[in-house]
């Protein structure tokens, strides 16, 4: 590689064994929740509120209908607490009287015949009294007289570094903007669903499509009022999740289990239709950011001032954590002495928003990166140059006060990305093209960003994850952990890490099915933590296992799979303990203050520069992405093919976020375009080439220096595309998706009108 100081670029063919789940998925034999056998079972369905918050006055079952062969569940059938267990118990499992949004579950029905069930849904009517003035907008919620909760705020954070006033004094060029990102639907192709059954001994088994089995288990314990040991949660093959199956599966599991409890031993399958899934399950938080950036004439940042607000919807669910990640990522990978980021998660009457790949960071990074281009423009500077001037380097101080260590590759990703795309040459070509009066305009835009992997701050400490390895007598090793394969390749990556650490071929190691009655809690499968945190625990457990086999079963110093199997046989014969467990210990220097956002927020950041090249048709105002380049430093690519697939897939979602995916709301705050015909995600015909360049600095906190991969691809595409379009058309863009209708409005409004609303700006 030609650039000194940049980490090595890898041959991606190396180290990429076949996916362990590949064959079953390709032959169609993998069983997803709707494929699970359910002999003699019932199907479940949900009756929901229609109004955007209010009081449920009456539930009327059509007397003309024979309800005797239905299982019917309402709030009074809940044996435990009527709340979904999460950060705070505010979201109800079934509405009893008051409710906060349209689409809340009131009555659960189950019947053996899906068609009859569908008809019965229409025969239950709810008498609802609407609360006056439901709120669906962030700033309206902040200013509203009517408060759903105090201040309509789920969380209110302040990251404050340096002295903003001082930064303002030193700034010679200042820009100000208001930028918005919309809700985005995860759109996993497998809709959500659960299968619950009461077993002969009264224990309950819930199987389904989910990310976090222990979240579901905890929710069942609370709602059913049953002991943990009598509940079992099993993950079925999961057809995509992206965060969307982090919290809501707990709700569906409670519903399915409540129905099963009354179904006299018959299993109950509760599978959402696509429309229901789109209307009620959580999506990415919409955001509104007021941002001001100041720099001196040379382009050195003097201050960053952001008022970042996200719409949390009608219940708190995960919003404070999403907000916290958004706030930490807001100032980007830049060095700036004076930073103020105020973050607020706001209560509205939308169904609650939730986790989606990136978890708050794509929203705030979007604002920062688009604002950086505005600043570059005002400075008369090239956007890449402005970034180069301000990107963090080792020993700089990060926005959270942490001194950046050697694991900082912001500049390396920028250099490689500029070189790969022939950025400066393209820029000149596109300028010439645009000046020549063609029917299209072209632009090249970039985004530089970093993303922290793992839970924020002390989160991993609180999780106290555990992973076990179990050796079987014939020499196979089973990994026991609660982390789930949902398509991202965790099963393969974890097996690969274990096999490598044990010096065994991959087919000697397998990942046990995620079943809470067997696997320890190794934390949820979120926040790009699986490979890094859990992979590291697997490696530690493997070392411990080898030590035990050496000490207790004479495993020779150098061994092959046969020697290993023989040692396992001896260990079993001697009735030695065949199970080893590794516990999480935080890396040194992991100090974090959640109140002041001070300290080391993440064990590792991954670094990236993404570049989008676009062409906009001047007549139709349709935007096409000509080329997309993602340069990403990921520590170490454990499985380069999986890593590349993760990045390409994430970029595709990011391009959807930037250009196509518009959630439209009806008057009751529910997604109106609740079909795949009108919620548009990218097809193969829509996407141009996506080039992925992996850089490996080898300094991440995971195995061999690996760090999180999967979330960065969501952070970069939207700002890169918007910056490219702004450049192509010489206009300001203030929101995504950049649909032709919006461009028409903006082009008509040229010169750009500032859309800065007046809101409370006190800090």
């Amino acid at each position, binding site marked *: 590689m030609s650039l000194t100081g940049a980490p090595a670029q890898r041959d991606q063919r190396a180290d990429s064994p076949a996916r362990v789940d590949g064959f079953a*998925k390709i032959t*169609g034999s993998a069983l997803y929740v709707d494929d699970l056998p359910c002999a003699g079972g019932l199907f479940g369905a949900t009756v929901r509120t229609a109004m955007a918050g209010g009081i449920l006055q009456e539930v009327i079952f059509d007397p003309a209908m024979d309800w005797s062969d239905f299982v019917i569940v309402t709030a009074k059938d809940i044996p435990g607490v009527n709340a979904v267990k999460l950060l705070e118990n505010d979201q109800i499992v079934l509405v009893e009287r008051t409710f906060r949004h349209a689409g809340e579950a009131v009555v659960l029905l189950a019947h053996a015949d899906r068609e009859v069930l569908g008809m019965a849904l229409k025969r239950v009517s709810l008498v609802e009294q609407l609360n006056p003035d439901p709120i669906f907008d962030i700033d309206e919620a902040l200013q509203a007289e009517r408060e759903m909760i105090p201040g309509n705020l789920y969380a209110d954070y302040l990251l404050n570094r340096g002295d903003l006033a001082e930064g303002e004094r030193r700034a010679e060029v200042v820009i100000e903007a208001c930028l918005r990102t919309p809700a985005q639907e995860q759109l996993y192709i497998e809709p959500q669903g659960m299968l619950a059954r009461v077993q002969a001994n009264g224990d309950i088994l819930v199987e389904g499509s989910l990310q976090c089995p222990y979240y579901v288990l905890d929710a069942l314990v609370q709602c059913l009022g049953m002991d943990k040991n009598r509940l079992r949660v099993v993950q079925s093959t999961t057809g995509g999740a992206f965060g969307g199956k982090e919290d809501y599966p707990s709700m569906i599991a409670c519903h399915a289990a409540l129905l099963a409890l009354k179904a006299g031993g018959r299993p109950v399958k509760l599978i959402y239709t696509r429309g229901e899934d789109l209307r009620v399950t959580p999506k990415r938080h919409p955001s509104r950011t007021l941002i001001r950036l100041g720099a001196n004439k040379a382009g050195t940042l003097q201050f960053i001032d952001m008022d970042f607000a996200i719409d949390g919807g009608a219940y708190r669910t995960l919003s404070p954590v999403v907000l916290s990640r958004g706030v930490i990522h807001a100032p980007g990978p830049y060095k700036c002495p004076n930073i103020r980021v105020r973050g607020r998660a706001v209560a509205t009457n939308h169904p609650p928003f939730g986790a989606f790949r990136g978890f708050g960071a794509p929203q705030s990074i979007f604002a920062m990166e688009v604002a950086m281009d505005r600043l570059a423009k005002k400075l008369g500077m090239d956007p890449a140059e402005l970034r180069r001037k301000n990107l963090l380097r080792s020993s700089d101080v990060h926005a959270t006060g942490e001194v950046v260590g050697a694991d900082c590759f912001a500049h390396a990703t920028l250099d490689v990305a500029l070189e790969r795309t022939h950025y400066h040459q393209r820029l000149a070509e596109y300028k010439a093209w645009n000046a020549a009066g063609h029917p299209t305009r072209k632009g090249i835009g970039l985004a530089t960003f970093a993303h922290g992997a793992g839970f924020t701050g002390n989160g991993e400490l609180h999780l106290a994850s555990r992973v076990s390895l179990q050796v079987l007598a014939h020499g196979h090793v089973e990994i026991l952990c609660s982390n789930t394969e949902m398509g991202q390749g965790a099963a393969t990556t974890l097996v690969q890490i274990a096999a490598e650490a044990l010096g065994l071929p991959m087919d000697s190691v397998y990942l046990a099915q995620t079943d809470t009655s067997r696997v320890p809690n190794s934390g949820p499968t979120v926040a790009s933590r699986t490979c890094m945190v859990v992979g590291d625990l697997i490696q530690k457990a493997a070392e411990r296992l080898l030590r035990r086999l050496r000490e207790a079963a004479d495993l020779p110093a150098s061994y092959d799979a046969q020697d290993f199997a023989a040692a396992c046989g001896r260990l079993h014969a001697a009735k030695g303990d065949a199970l080893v467990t590794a516990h999480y210990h935080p890396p040194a220097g992991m100090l974090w203050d959640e109140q002041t956002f001070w300290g080391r927020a993440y064990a590792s950041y991954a670094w990236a520069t993404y570049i989008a090249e676009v062409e906009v048709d001047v007549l139709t105002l349709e935007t096409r992405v000509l080329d997309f380049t993602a340069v990403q430093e990921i520590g170490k690519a454990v499985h380069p093919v999986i890593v590349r697939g993760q990045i390409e897939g994430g970029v595709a979602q990011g391009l959807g976020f930037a250009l196509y995916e518009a959630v439209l709301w009806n008057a009751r705050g529910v997604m109106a375009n609740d079909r795949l015909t009108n919620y548009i995600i990218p097809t193969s015909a829509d996407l141009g080439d996506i080039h992925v360049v992996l850089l490996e600095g080898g300094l991440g906190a995971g195995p061999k220096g690996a760090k999180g991969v999967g979330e960065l691809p969501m952070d970069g595409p939207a700002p890169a595309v918007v910056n490219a379009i702004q450049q192509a058309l010489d206009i300001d863009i203030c929101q995504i998706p950049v649909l032709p209708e919006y461009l028409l409005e903006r082009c008509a409004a040229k010169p750009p009108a500032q859309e800065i609303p007046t809101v409370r700006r006190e800090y």
Partner: protein
Amino acid sequence: MPTTMRINGKVFQSHSAPTARLLDVLRNDCHLKGTKEGCGEGECGACAVLVNGKLVNSCLVPLGQMERAEITTVEGLPEDSALARAFVRCGATQCGICTPGMMLAATALLAEHAHPTLEEIRWGLSGNLCRCTGYGRIYAAIAQAAGGPADV
């Protein structure tokens, strides 16, 4: 009136109503669970099967139209084909829910173009949504199965 068709080479007679969706007949009457439902309205291609060699979305097809039809589902594809091997090797499946439909779309595409260009692959798959892969690894797998170089 029962409907008689050949599914994966075997004669099958269904007594479901002629208005029943082929998707439900395959999944519930034939227990062929490889055909998935992603949207139920012809948009995602997760339910795609071959009917007389043509790619169709089985959620849109009423059973009544299937009299004497020759139907291939993912279970009817050879397990060890060049295509299957390339899908595994190239990482063309992630969560896998779109994969059966993709395998059938790819089969139909390769039947029509033994050596498809990238543009032909893109268009050939454009009725099948994948939310995981961004399609790149699927293109690579199809190109490799067709004997071309796979950019993996």
